[in-house]
């Protein structure tokens, strides 16, 4: 591995707008009276709720248990009582089941775990079980259960920590790496022990030199390497990060383990450290609350279940009317229609966008300029696929490998005809998967 900045093929360079919150230290959000914890915060099997209305719970107590391997439990963000089991607005603008916890103000721990100080000598399988029991998911945005990725069925030789944070505006991972460098590195070391590896590599985009320096100070001690990456969106996408760091290409439809890699987010690594060494389940995370309309953008450590409206209040409210509210970054974040949506384990950012930067929907004909083709990090043909989708030719779209699309939005970002390419691909993927489910299994 040379030290020259690495990158993948394609990508775009949106204005990163990170200056709004990059210099703001992480602040612990004050304890609220009420938390509405969305039950299914991960990708995978839905949870089985263990509490009922009126139950008293402690901070860290198990609220719902996993029902399968690809599933992680949920813990209480504070001590108090369960006051409702109702539906609340979810991040996809569809109401989802949630548990409402009314805090008693004591914030008293009732963690089901014992801290493991001597993790260097602990059994890797026990460490992995702790990761699963603590409810840790991919905190970069996907929400995929971490322990599943730690159980590869193929030989793995590289552990990669994703600290690229390529989404514009977001600085949560940046602040984490800067302020809790040792925890991230220790998390990496624990993850490496679980996988039976001796080393790990943390990939960080070069626009965070202070984070790289902070990590480098502690990394060598634990045999962790910090690698600078060229600033390029979507550098933090799993497959692109693997290519930039190792030169290996994950095959279409494949997983990182197919090329001997496991990728974990830096925030997940820090959560692993806290779960193992401190015995804390995953009940809080650092989230960037940012956007030009906010009076005081910054980074906060929120308990899960904190309503977005409270987060915006903490950031001083707005001085101009925002046009859009997103969970996540501007490229892949999801637009919200309610301020009652709550922070989940994978909420990396809460972003308000001013009217000037929201483009109105138009869909002009494709002019075949090819910008999307050069930008596509998966090297598929967005222009042609979008035409296939517009004509409802999903079989053709499938031949053109639309299923390889990672929905990074680079093509839509660049398109001079402002075609809704990303949305077309979402549709194509959904239609193809629905058709596959319908087909009788051979």
């Amino acid at each position, binding site marked *: 591995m040379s030290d020259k900045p690495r990158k993948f093929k394609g990508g775009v360079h949106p204005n990163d707008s990170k200056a709004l919150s990059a210099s703001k230290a992480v602040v612990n959000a004050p304890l609220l009276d009420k938390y509405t914890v969305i039950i299914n915060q991960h990708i995978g099997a839905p949870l089985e709720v263990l509490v009922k209305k009126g139950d008293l719970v402690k901070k860290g107590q198990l609220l719902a248990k996993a029902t399968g391997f690809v599933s992680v439990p949920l813990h209480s963000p504070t001590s108090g009582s369960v006051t409702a089991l109702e*539906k609340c607005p979810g991040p*996809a*603008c*569809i*109401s989802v089941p949630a548990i409402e916890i009314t805090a008693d103000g004591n914030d008293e721990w009732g963690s089901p775990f014992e801290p493991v100080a001597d993790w260097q000598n602990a059994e890797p399988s026990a460490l992995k079980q702790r990761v699963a029991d603590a409810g840790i998911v991919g905190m970069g945005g996907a929400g995929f259960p971490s322990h599943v990725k730690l159980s590869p069925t193929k030989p793995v030789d590289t552990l990669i920590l994703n600290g690229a944070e390529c989404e514009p505006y977001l600085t949560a991972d940046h602040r984490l790496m800067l302020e809790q460098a040792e925890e991230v590195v220790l998390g990496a070391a624990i993850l490496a022990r679980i996988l039976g590896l001796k080393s790990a590599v943390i990939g960080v985009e070069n626009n965070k030199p202070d984070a790289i320096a902070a990590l480098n100070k502690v990394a060598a001690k634990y045999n962790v390497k910090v690698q600078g990456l060229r600033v390029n969106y979507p550098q933090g996408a799993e497959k692109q990060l693997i290519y930039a760091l190792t030169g290996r290409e994950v095959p279409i439809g494949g997983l990182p383990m197919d090329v001997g890699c496991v990728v974990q987010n830096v925030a997940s690594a820090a959560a692993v450290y806290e779960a193992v060494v401190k015995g804390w389940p995953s009940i809080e995370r650092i989230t960037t609350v940012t956007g030009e309309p906010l009076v005081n953008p910054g980074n906060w450590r929120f308990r899960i279940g904190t309503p977005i409206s409270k987060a915006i209040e903490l950031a001083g409210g707005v001085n101009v009317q925002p046009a859009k509210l997103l969970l996540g970054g501007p490229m892949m974040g*999801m*637009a919200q*229609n309610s301020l009652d949506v709550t922070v989940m384990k994978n909420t990396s950012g809460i972003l308000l966008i001013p009217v000037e930067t*929201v483009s*109105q*929907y138009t*869909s002009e004909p494709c002019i075949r300029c090819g910008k999307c083709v050069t930008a596509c990090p998966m090297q598929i043909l967005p222009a042609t696929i979008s035409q296939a989708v517009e004509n409802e030719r999903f079989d053709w779209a499938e031949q053109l490998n639309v299923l390889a699309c990672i929905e990074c939005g680079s093509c839509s970002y660049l398109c001079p005809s402002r075609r*809704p390419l990303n*949305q*077309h691909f*979402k*549709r194509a993927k*959904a*239609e193809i998967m629905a058709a596959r489910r319908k087909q009788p299994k051979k």
Partner: protein
Amino acid sequence: MTIILISILFAAGLGVLLAVVIGAAAKAFSVESDPRIETVTDMLPGANCGGCGYAGCADFAKAIVEGRADPSLCPVAPPESAGRIAEYLGITTQEKEKVIAVVKCSGSCAVTVRSPYNGVGDCRSAALVAGGAKGCDYGCIGFASCARACPFDAIEMRDGLAVVHPELCVGCGKCVETCPKNLIILAPAAVDVHVYCNSPEKGALKRKVCKTACIGCRKCVKAADSEEQMTVKGFLVETNYSSPPLPDLVEKTGCPTTALRLASKHAAGAYEGVSK
């Protein structure tokens, strides 16, 4: 002069020769086809809607003649037409009940909570992005995917709500699969009373986002001649299509949200602005 004459003779000779070749080829390589298929195709409506499940009317006619399909499968043709085809072929056909599509939602823009949506104008695309950006997770998104799929122009988009015109609908079912919210059902055409709501949520939650939702008050169940005429499923009431109520139920009930409607009057727009 001779050149012109030679050219004419040559062209004529070539024409005769080719005609003989084509004629011989047509005889030698002729494909036997059942002449009845063509007759049956002519007896079908020729809409090529695909409602029967075959690729157009000609394919369906072939299936009927070969005994693979029943003439009554055609949703467009009146029952007499199926009878005529059966008579011509000397087969028996079953009586079929005419069905029409019902979009089980009454949430037009005027009565529901909606957020601005900035994307592809197609229900199936919109449903993937933000569930259609509508207050109700179960209602009509209103981007006309069903109306575009209808070969008979029987679905009208009125203030962001798909409304079926019963007199135009033939019940081919093309719209049913286009709806990402699975709102469209095929109901017997003889039944006029339907509940125009599909949300299984609690009444209070539904009322928050929609003025014309069924709140499950059971007023219609009590007003019906027999309680079996309306089926209660949790917080949602449905018409029992196997023992349907009479059209006067709507008036007798006086549904507080006007979710209970007559399909014919709903299409005519009689319920707009009625809900309290």
